[in-house]
């Protein structure tokens, strides 16, 4: 009898938690779209960049990538950008602001379990990345005749792994940002330097010093993984296992840093 009752209670709790994740995800989404800065920085930026770059230099051919058009290179590039902007920059800024204004502490003191909060943020970030991926694909396809990915599953795996790892990196960097004022500048500078080094704006010549250096950083690997799902360069396998592994390792490292350094409340003065 008791074990049956226990089962019922456990199942009820489980259902309750799932409902809690849905509830919190709904408000994370509301939070993201109402806070227009985040929405503009992620979805807005990538769409505007694609449109502008596509219209200006989009038809140039890139010899190092098998002669594909530049705009074809930009679509997976900006999908990767969006994943990183949502997971890394936006999340890091959001966490710092929430921590410094006491919102995290308040959540900590509510019955919302920490894992529900983390799961909701992850799901919400994924929704943002998918909305943006959809927009980029549609604009690329119908505006610039860019191909859809050769392997949809390879693209989705790269997006999901990218969000997990870059979110972990966002949390990790948020723990070293001292206050709200520094959150935007610090994360944006780090982010744009990484993007430049990884060749988002201009493809890196293979074998160059910059390409070698950025092999140790996660950004380029996410861009490569995304490119490969679009069969860039031509004839490659869409599964970039090596690159996915590097992204995953950065994610694990960032998670370890986050677990050690994460704070729920502002630093005591």
């Amino acid at each position, binding site marked *: 009898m008791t074990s049956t009752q226990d089962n019922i209670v456990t199942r009820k709790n489980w259902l*309750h938690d799932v409902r809690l994740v849905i509830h919190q995800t709904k*408000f994370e989404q509301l*939070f993201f779209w109402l806070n227009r800065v985040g929405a503009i920085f992620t979805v807005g930026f990538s769409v505007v960049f694609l449109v502008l770059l596509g219209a200006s230099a989009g038809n140039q051919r890139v010899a190092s990538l098998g002669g594909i058009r530049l705009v074809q290179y930009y679509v997976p590039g900006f999908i990767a950008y969006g994943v990183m902007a949502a997971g890394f920059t936006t999340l890091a800024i959001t966490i710092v602001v929430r921590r410094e204004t006491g*919102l995290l*502490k308040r959540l900590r003191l*509510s019955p919302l379990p920490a894992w529900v909060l983390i799961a909701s943020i992850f799901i919400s970030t994924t929704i943002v990345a998918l909305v943006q991926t959809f927009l980029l694909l549609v604009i690329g396809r119908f505006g610039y005749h860019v191909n859809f990915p050769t392997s949809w599953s390879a693209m989705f795996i790269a997006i999901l792994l990218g969000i997990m790892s870059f979110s972990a990196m966002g949390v990790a960097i948020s723990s070293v940002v001292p206050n709200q004022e520094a959150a935007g500048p610090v994360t944006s500078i780090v982010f744009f330097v990484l993007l430049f080094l990884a060749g988002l704006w201009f493809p890196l010549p293979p074998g160059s010093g910059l390409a070698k250096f950025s092999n140790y950083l996660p950004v380029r690997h996410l861009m490569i993984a995304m490119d490969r799902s679009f069969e860039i360069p031509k004839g490659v396998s869409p599964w970039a296992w090596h690159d996915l592994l590097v992204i995953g390792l950065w994610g694990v490292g960032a998670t370890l840093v986050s677990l050690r350094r994460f704070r729920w409340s502002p630093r005591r003065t």
Partner: protein
Amino acid sequence: MTLALRVNNLAKSYGNLKAIDDVSFDVERGEIFALLGPNGAGKTTCIEVLEGFLRRDSGAVEVLGVDPGERRHLRWLRERVGVVLQELAVESFFTVRQVLERNAGFYPNPRPIDEVIELVGLSEKGDAKVKRLSGGQQRRLDIGLGIVGNPELLFLDEPTTGLDPAARRTTWDLIRLLSSEGTTVLMSSHYMDEVEALAQRVAVLSHGQIAALGPTASLGGRNDGEVTIRFMLPANVAAKDLPITTSGVEGDIVEVKTREEVLTLHALTGWAIANNFVLEGLTVARETLEDIYLSLTRQDREETSTRTT
């Protein structure tokens, strides 16, 4: 079980600084209990240990019968305990209703949103964005977030700091209402009038220790302590002609400190009537909580300074 909180020999340090040191008190269910003390006395640290937010160094703590320092109790506890922090913490681009709906969803048995909005006096602001609210209104929303889960026990860390006098009264009424519904309240404050108006019992904290603990009305023995009678000396009367012993005369103002105020007043007023004197500016004052509080914390301050020198 009638105790909502049990605190025994609680201690917590930050590095070398002893934030609270050997603090013990109990709070009964349904009671409003206040922690009174100056900034840095350890009020917030004490509350945060009870909330399970901070780890204690030593001592025993029970909140609604369980130890908040044990992780496995925390969720159960947080479904039953409401918290209002000292700092304002509300998302600025949500509406009042959205913030409350979000938090209500965390609790198994929340209060209806409209009722909460009504209780905290924000009926006309339900659909307003939080950033459009005044500081006082945001503070009241903060309190609304503390009670939306229908808590059995409510922690209020300086609930009216920064509120205008009218908003303070509204908040007091709300706290009294919650208490009348059976909610236990542990509040901290550095306003004497607030503690006097709300709390049945009070602990005065000073430098992390309890300087005094007892019913608010009789703290430090002030209900049977000295009473100060003041009045203006009638014209052409010298202090030595008075029928009572004075404690001091400053200009025309006579001050009499006595533990037998009824007898003293009888003698004084009888003499005045018989001689047709008017006792201008006559006042009778019992020691206020503030007097007690200041003398308690002053003593402690002096002790600390002798210890360190």
